[in-house]
């Protein structure tokens, strides 16, 4: 779900559109746009504080032919198509008949792209790193 939510909207919708044999669905909650209050903790362990509001699009759907399977999506921003695609992928991943193909054709490529994006960002940041080690040694 995290991979789906973080993926760029156009990539996720394109990969889902390319996927054949998708199941029929009913809406439980049509896509709606709202704001959620995000909370954080300093350093991950400190007191909770309010970070700010974030625009979120959410929706939920169920598969017509598989009773009990519900796909949920909460994605950042106002992109309704992305939320729809993510909810459908979430539902299909819970269903043995589709899970394999969704994982191979959608989740894994997105995961690899995300890892590459992060690596690029880390390299960029790493190139600007200043090493203060010599200053510490100079004092001692």
């Amino acid at each position: 779900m995290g991979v789906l939510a973080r993926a760029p909207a156009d990539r996720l919708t394109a990969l889902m559109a390319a996927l054949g044999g998708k199941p029929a669905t009913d809406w439980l909650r049509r896509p709606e746009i709202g704001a959620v209050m995000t909370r954080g903790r300093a350093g991950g362990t400190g007191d909770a504080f309010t970070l700010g509001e974030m625009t979120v699009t959410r929706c939920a759907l169920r598969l017509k032919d598989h009773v009990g399977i519900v796909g949920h999506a909460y994605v950042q921003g106002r992109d309704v198509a992305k939320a729809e695609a993510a909810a459908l992928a979430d539902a299909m991943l819970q269903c043995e008949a589709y899970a394999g193909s969704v994982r191979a054709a959608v989740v894994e490529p997105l995961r690899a792209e995300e890892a590459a994006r992060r690596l690029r960002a880390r390299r960029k940041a790493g190139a600007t790193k200043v090493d203060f080690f010599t200053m510490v040694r100079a004092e001692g």
Partner: protein
Amino acid sequence: MAAVIQDAAGLRAGFGAPVLESQACFSALMRALAFPGRVTQAPTLAEPPDGWPSALAAAALTLLDADTPVWLDENARSPGAEAFLRFHTGAPFAAKAGAARFAILLDPRSADFTDFDIGTDQYPDRSATVLIAVDALAGGPRSVLEGPGIKTSQQIAPKGGLSGLWEAWPRNRALYPLGFDAFLFAGDGVIGLPRSVKRTDQRD
């Protein structure tokens, strides 16, 4: 995670157009309270939880939210109904009838109507609203209603084990401005019973 999926088994859909339909339903409920005893139509809900009148489920989706603890009677309580309310409204479930802002009764026979929250002198509006499913809104024992919203008198004849409610009603009315308000539901129809209404048996 497994428990979540279990609860979602056969999760029922809510309103197709949540904003417009819940507004229409709210307006229907207001009309029902403004004209006590008059049968009002609520928007139809395609798939209410098992055993729930469509209008009762529609009213629950309209009225409940995360700030309104809800209490379900034994008959209304089921994994399907609880999942339905949790998903669509986010309302917390009250452990006791007295702690609930809304109570949902599928069988009014088993209810103790002295349990419900009647509000406080400072805030009489912070009282319970009791949503009751009945078998039919007509064809039962006849009652006469009088009071605000009724020009002379209004006859109702809901069917379905309301003797306990009628027994508790004079006390509820005597508490005014405190007391609970009630709605009766069957199919798409709803009858509002504000705490201000006076009820007597129909004499032939």
